């Protein structure tokens, strides 16, 4: 039993639904929960037919690496997950494949940014950040001085002005969903309002899956002047606001488990829970 889960949050309802459906189909599923635990990496070995990697924490990604190297099957596969976690690598790969991404730079010395900061507003993101943690927006070079010198690499991107709210795109295999995320106001939490998926958004979203090797993933897109631009890519997103998500994900996991493989009966989930 392996798990690492923050008990202070409620479980992701989409996942709860997915596992209910899979259990109903005869899958044996274990979800490890341990808020505080001491792990012995030496003792970790592959005991399950399939591991579903939902978590994005360092600990779970490390354990996924150990399992991968021992021949475990992971969903999404391990190497695409760690590659996607690195925003510097992801930005370069998407650009090379013709996916529209903002102009991007990296440096260890923020002073070197003043020239590009003078020409355009910039967004600075930790190279391995999640959920907007540690993001700084620099509107003019003078603001660079107030950005704390990063201890970890940052991806610097041109700020892309968008028409309307950011588009949250969720993908399950070949199914693409989109929602606009409204800003949290007056104590009301941010809401996701389902949006139509244009042919262009769908094409870009599926291309990102081909490039990254992910099947369950999410994108943040901005509807820029020249069309949609991808500003973030994540494996196994929350699927919040995607009503049909649970049965589709359950089907996807079942197909994945059956692929080139004897009928799978056990599924273990590696997850930290995020709503």
């Amino acid at each position, binding site marked *: 039993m392996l798990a690492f889960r923050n008990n202070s949050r409620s479980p992701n309802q989409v996942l709860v639904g997915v596992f209910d459906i899979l259990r109903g189909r005869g899958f044996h599923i274990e979800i490890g929960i341990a808020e505080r635990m001491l*792990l012995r*990496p030496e003792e970790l070995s592959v005991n399950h037919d399939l591991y579903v990697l939902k978590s994005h924490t360092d600990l779970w990604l490390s354990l996924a690496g*150990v399992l991968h190297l021992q021949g475990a099957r992971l969903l999404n596969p391990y190497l695409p997950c760690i590659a996607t976690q690195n925003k510097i690598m992801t930005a370069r790969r998407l650009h090379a494949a013709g996916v529209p991404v903002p102009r991007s730079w990296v440096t260890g010395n923020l002073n070197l940014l003043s020239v590009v900061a003078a020409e355009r507003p910039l967004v600075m993101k930790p190279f391995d950040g999640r959920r907007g943690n540690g993001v700084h927006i620099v509107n003019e070079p003078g603001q660079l001085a107030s950005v704390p010198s990063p201890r970890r690499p940052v991806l610097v991107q041109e700020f892309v002005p968008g028409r309307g709210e950011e588009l949250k795109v969720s993908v399950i295999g070949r199914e693409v969903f989109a929602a606009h995320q409204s800003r949290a106001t007056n104590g009301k939490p941010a809401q996701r309002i389902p949006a139509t998926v244009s042919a262009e958004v769908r094409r870009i979203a599926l291309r990102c899956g081909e490039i990254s090797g992910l099947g369950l993933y999410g994108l943040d897109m901005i509807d820029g002047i020249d069309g949609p631009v991808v500003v973030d890519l994540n494996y196994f997103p929350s699927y919040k606001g995607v009503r049909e998500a649970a049965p589709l994900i359950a089907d996807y996991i079942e197909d994945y488990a059956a692929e080139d493989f004897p009928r799978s009966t056990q599924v273990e989930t590696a997850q930290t829970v995020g709503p």
Partner: protein
Amino acid sequence: MLDWVNPVIGETFRVLSDRGVKLDLLRPEERMVDLADLRVENDLYILKSGTELALSVAGALHALGAATLNPYPTVAMMRNKIIVTRMLKEAGVPTPDTYVASDPGDFRPLLELGPLILKPYRGSRGAGIHIVRKPQELDGLNLDGLMLAQRYHAPDGPDCKIYCIGGRLFGIRRIWPIQKYEDKLGQPFDLSAELRDIALRCGAVFGIDLYGLDTVVSDGRPYVVDVQKFGSYMGVPDAPRVLADYIVAAGTRAMRGELQLSESA
């Protein structure tokens, strides 16, 4: 790609230049890299730097088809000490008992059985390493993120560094922690059959033959406490020439498209 040049590496570069090898030193920290301009411009990229930025740039180059020494996926994996510990165990390499926790307080009960060495799960060059003997010492530590705790085995003598260059093994005894420059050079020694076997197993499990390892001998038993993707090679007799030979051979293979670029190590 490197973050600093130790004397061995500096001399290696001179030997390579004398042989007509064109070298570019890349320090992504000190320039501004436009990612769109990042292209594979060299036959071979040598990953010497230990910084996360250099590793990310190397990862992007690897994804674009660059040949890297050592292979990028292996180097990325070797940064994670949780993965390394498990791999070494798999290879039958003796390591101290190892524990992982996000909250160092979880290590408290382990101190009843003796001291521990705490290390960040991703780290290099001994940064952030602490020896902890008493529970109250855990409180005073400024730790960040996921930590590894290894059972501390008091060494019988100086640490034994083992370096591998293309299958050739070199042993250097070196005191730890280092006090002065001469300590870095250490004393060459002949490796026992047991240490040779351990060193070769370490390389085999990661599929590389250019690396360094730190071993501690305690009560006559060796333990591997760290593995480096590319050692400092300080104190290795004739290291610059041996390294240059190796790099030229790797570069030649890369130019012929023979260098292993496997995705999974």
